[in-house]
């Protein structure tokens, strides 16, 4: 009897890995957002998860009225706008404040965004149709593919594909374009950056807008998978933060790998062990890292 049960459980592993991978992609994007802002300001922006929420909620609301071609860019623009608001009205005017107080301010900002979303769109989860699918009785049904003993939804492939595109795009942006190089320069030596004529304030703005835009893209692609909800940003932000720290703050590749691993570990923990403690996984990992290796786990290897 008990043997039968565990075989049953093991059969779920591929399915759990796939759904964990999908969630891990969102953590990965959020982790990259944390690193972009950390690199240009040394600030850990705890509003990062809310950018995902804004993208998801705006997209879900619009998708019930218009097409994806309108909803996607509008939702991303809303996210970018939120990022610009944080930079322009919160961080830049307070540039004399210590990094710790700035971080606390970003926590306040995140609560503000959540409250605002709740006010505008309510507390209920907003369903969003998948990007691609077949229309059944006026309702878009997602396609499913069979893959290594599990089902994978087309929307999950969208999440993974978009994540891969964003990560590669960010890498090219920071290594190959002069604007990306200038943003890196601000992080490495701010005085040096000013000396060569880089407008450091503008670069900080750009880093917030980019991190927020990335988060919003993640929110849009994931809204058909998770449902969009005004409080969804908290857990995604925490997972993304955990991934960013695990991968070494400021290290994109490390954060992406850690995000995907975290998503899978969470999903396996929830599915195989204790479903009630799934959300505690990120906390526990975070505590262990901060106790043992405050500089991050994947950092050394990634830089070598």
């Amino acid at each position, binding site marked *: 009897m008990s043997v039968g049960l565990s075989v049953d459980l093991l059969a779920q592993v591929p399915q759990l890995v796939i759904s964990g991978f999908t969630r891990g992609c969102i953590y990965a994007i959020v982790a990259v957002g944390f690193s972009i802002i950390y690199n240009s300001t040394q600030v850990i922006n705890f509003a990062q998860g809310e950018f995902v929420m804004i993208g998801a909620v705006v997209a879900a609301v619009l998708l019930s009225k218009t097409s994806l071609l309108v909803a996607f860019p509008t939702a991303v623009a809303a996210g970018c706008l939120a990022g610009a608001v944080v930079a322009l009205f919160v961080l830049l005017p307070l540039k004399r404040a210590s990094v710790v107080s700035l971080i606390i301010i970003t926590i306040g900002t995140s609560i503000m965004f959540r409250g605002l979303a709740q006010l505008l769109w309510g507390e209920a989860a907003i369903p969003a149709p998948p990007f691609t699918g077949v229309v059944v009785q006026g309702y878009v049904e997602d396609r499913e593919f069979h893959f290594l003993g599990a089902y994978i939804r087309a929307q999950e492939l969208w999440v993974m594909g978009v994540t891969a595109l964003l990560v590669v795009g960010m890498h090219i942006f920071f290594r190959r374009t*002069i604007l990306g*190089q*200038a943003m*890196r*320069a601000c992080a*490495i*030596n701010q*005085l*040096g*950056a*000013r*000396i*060569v*004529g*880089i*407008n450091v304030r503008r670069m900080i703005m750009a880093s917030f807008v980019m991190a927020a835009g990335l988060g919003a893209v993640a929110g849009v692609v994931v809204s058909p998978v998770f449902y969009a909800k005004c409080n969804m940003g908290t857990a995604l932000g925490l997972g993304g933060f955990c991934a960013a720290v695990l991968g070494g703050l400021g290290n994109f590749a490390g954060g992406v790998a850690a995000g995907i691993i975290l998503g899978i570990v969470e999903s396996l923990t929830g599915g195989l062990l204790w479903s009630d403690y799934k959300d505690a996984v990120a906390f526990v990992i975070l505590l262990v890292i901060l106790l043992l290796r405050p500089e991050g786990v994947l950092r050394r290897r990634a830089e070598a």
Partner: protein
Amino acid sequence: MLKLQSVVTYYGRVLALKGVSLHVDHGEIVAIVGPNGAGKTTVLNTISGIVTSHSGKIVFDGVDVTGYPTEALVEMGLVQVPEGRQLFAEMTVYENLMLGAYRRSRAAKKSEVAVDLERVYSIFPILKERKTQLAGTLSGGEQQMLAIGRALMSKPKMLLLDEPSMGLAPLVTKSIFKVISDLRKEGTTVLLVEQNAKAALAIAKRAYVMETGRIVMEGSASELARNPEIQRAYLGMGYRQIMEQPRNA
């Protein structure tokens, strides 16, 4: 080319420049010498907009540039090579040089920037050899060359050099100073801040002596080099001691 009129600068409540007036003509090397803490770096930082002046006037190339942001001045051709070099240590030599051309990266043609890169490599061949190396791994002399090279990538009309000899062996200092006087011959105007007064006065045409936030003496470099007071304070002690001179000199 550059003119400062009674420039006053504060750090918070601390008065760092107590009314500095000086001028640099086109094609000149002008030196500012003086002890540590005199305010030499503050003069350069005020000129390039890194710190803002409280009062006074700064004119560059016939334009009143008082209060201009650094990027606007870089675009006008006024570029600083800062104290401590301020390189991008975790970026390659090549990336550092390309960031020197940042203000031109949109307007200028790629081919123009490539020509300037070759020029920098011909002035400092070692940078070409090390172009894929991280800036932080270079020797002190190479880092100074990179800092000058990065500034040259913005096609400056005028360079503000802050202690280029700092921490360098005499022979390396000599080769850097040779490059500075060559640059002048090619038409670049130079304002050179140095604690190594001997080396500075040797290549400068005129010089200012600064102490505690004001200019206390000025004249032609050869005149100042012969002045007994200057000789006692800055030149008499020999090269190495000048480098380590305490601030109450």
